[in-house]
């Protein structure tokens, strides 16, 4: 496949995974958890590096997934101790992120980990870092990882589809009929962390946050059906990834930043033109009904 082909494929994989995971994020009102986790995984990556002294992908993913779940756990715990949820998120993620930055500055020196790279990502390097896969041939490692993550996400969402629905819509009822709401919460946080971490390595924290929240929010404006919302969100994710890439190439700028920006354009179009919840219909309708 061509260089551009690999980049588009990788970014689209991020778009689909994040789009799907993001739907539940929006509906569970935890959008800012994505922001928090996308920052704290840095600490996990640094800790994994310090412990193993290698930049092996699997260690990083495990380390980051653990910190992601820990972040969720701390926030939840502070919340039950009476700290407002958004304040709890703010305290936990800024402190853990600061710890990560300090560890990099004092212990790691700038080996290969730098904060800026983590934030903005370097999708342009992805096609160079390949691995030989039987039958298919050389495949970029990031693309392969993201494919696995996509299957994992699909597997977990489809397998527990009705449990996700009920624990998101009415956790009290779910608990009363014996569905383990808390376990489902942490399962979701694990999936969110793994998705974030895999995508983070490829495209950087900011694009992960954009891809998790914005396409799902845009999809929420177009449909009243959960299943359609999942599909639309994934499509919007892919669309933003591809549109963002070509825009970046056109004006020669950061690909990740441009993709994040593209999700905003999709959202803007949705908020203006969505038939039921858009601003235009909101403004026009009162006149039409007169």
């Amino acid at each position: 496949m061509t260089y551009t082909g690999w980049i588009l494929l990788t970014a689209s994989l991020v778009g689909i995974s994040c789009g799907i995971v993001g739907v539940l994020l929006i509906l569970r009102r935890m959008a800012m958890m994505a922001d928090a986790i996308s920052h704290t995984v840095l600490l996990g990556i640094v800790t994994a590096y310090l412990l193993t002294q290698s930049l092996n992908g699997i260690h990083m993913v495990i380390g980051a997934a653990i910190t992601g779940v820990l972040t969720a756990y701390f926030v939840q715990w502070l919340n039950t101790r009476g700290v407002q949820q958004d304040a709890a998120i703010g305290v936990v993620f800024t402190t853990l992120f600061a710890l990560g930055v300090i560890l990099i500055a004092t212990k790691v020196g700038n080996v290969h980990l730098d904060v800026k790279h983590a934030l903005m990502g370097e999708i342009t390097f992805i096609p160079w870092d390949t691995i030989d896969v039987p039958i298919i041939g050389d495949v970029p490692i990031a693309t392969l990882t993201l494919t696995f993550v996509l299957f994992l996400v699909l597997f977990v969402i489809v397998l527990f589809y009705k449990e996700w629905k009920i624990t998101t819509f009415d956790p009290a009822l779910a608990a009363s009929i014996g569905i383990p709401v808390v376990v489902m919460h942490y399962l979701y946080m694990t999936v969110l962390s793994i998705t974030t971490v895999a995508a983070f390595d490829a495209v950087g924290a900011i694009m992960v946050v954009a891809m998790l929240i914005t396409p799902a929010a845009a999809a929420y404006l177009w449909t009243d059906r959960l299943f359609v919302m999942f599909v639309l969100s994934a499509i919007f994710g892919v669309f933003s990834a591809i549109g963002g890439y070509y825009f970046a190439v056109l004006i020669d700028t950061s690909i990740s930043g441009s993709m994040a920006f593209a999700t905003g354009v999709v959202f803007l179009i949705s908020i203006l033109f969505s038939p039921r919840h858009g601003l235009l219909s909101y403004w026009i309708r009162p006149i039409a009904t007169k």
Partner: protein
Amino acid sequence: MNVLEVENVSAAYRKNTVLRDVSFTIKQGSLTGIVGPNGAGKSTLIKVLLNLHPQLTGKVLFFGSELKNVKRRIGYVPQRVSVDWDFPTDALDVVLMGMYGQIGWLKWPKKIHKEKALKALDIVGMKDFAHRQISELSGGQQQRVFLARALIQEADLYFMDEPLAGVDAATEKAIMHILRELKESGKTVLVVHHDLQTVEDYFDQVLFINRTVVAQGETEKIFTKENIAKTYGGNIRWLKEGVGFVNSPLQ
């Protein structure tokens, strides 16, 4: 036969004791109204019984057994305002959720489940709205959907938190009709209720709660001026002697 036995249950929100030494029993086939002033711990009581809020002390037995053994036999209708009605789904789907426990892990709802859900919607008079987005339903219609969801659980013991709050008169009538039918078919229903004027018409048993059980028993015997005054403090003004009351504070 007692389907519910509650003994010395206490619960707290942080420093405030909300429930203290609550003890009562509920007989099979009864329709009980749980009444008491705002903040008396009525909703908390249900949550504690169903293990949705931590219980500090005491013992609760359902059908002579622990909650976890009999979850299938218990139906719960949370307050309507406790969920986000902007959730992208339709009425039929909400009703189906009542059967998720029976359907079991990893399985998807089948056609028979959908037919059952439609039937439940029909019972509450909402069949025509099955595919309506839930945010487009009125408050009364949303409450009917919640009731249909409880019916489909085919439980033996129902807990309903303020099912008549903010609903229209027709819905109120319809809901009470269904509750009476449940009772007549041998089911047991506990309803958190806020309107003292209708207690006598609606419930055969009444449970007065204000942080603890003030009085409990058959409505005819227990629903007296004295017990109401005891539960609500002095905050009751008599409208017409023996006919009704309003719950509004005196000066």
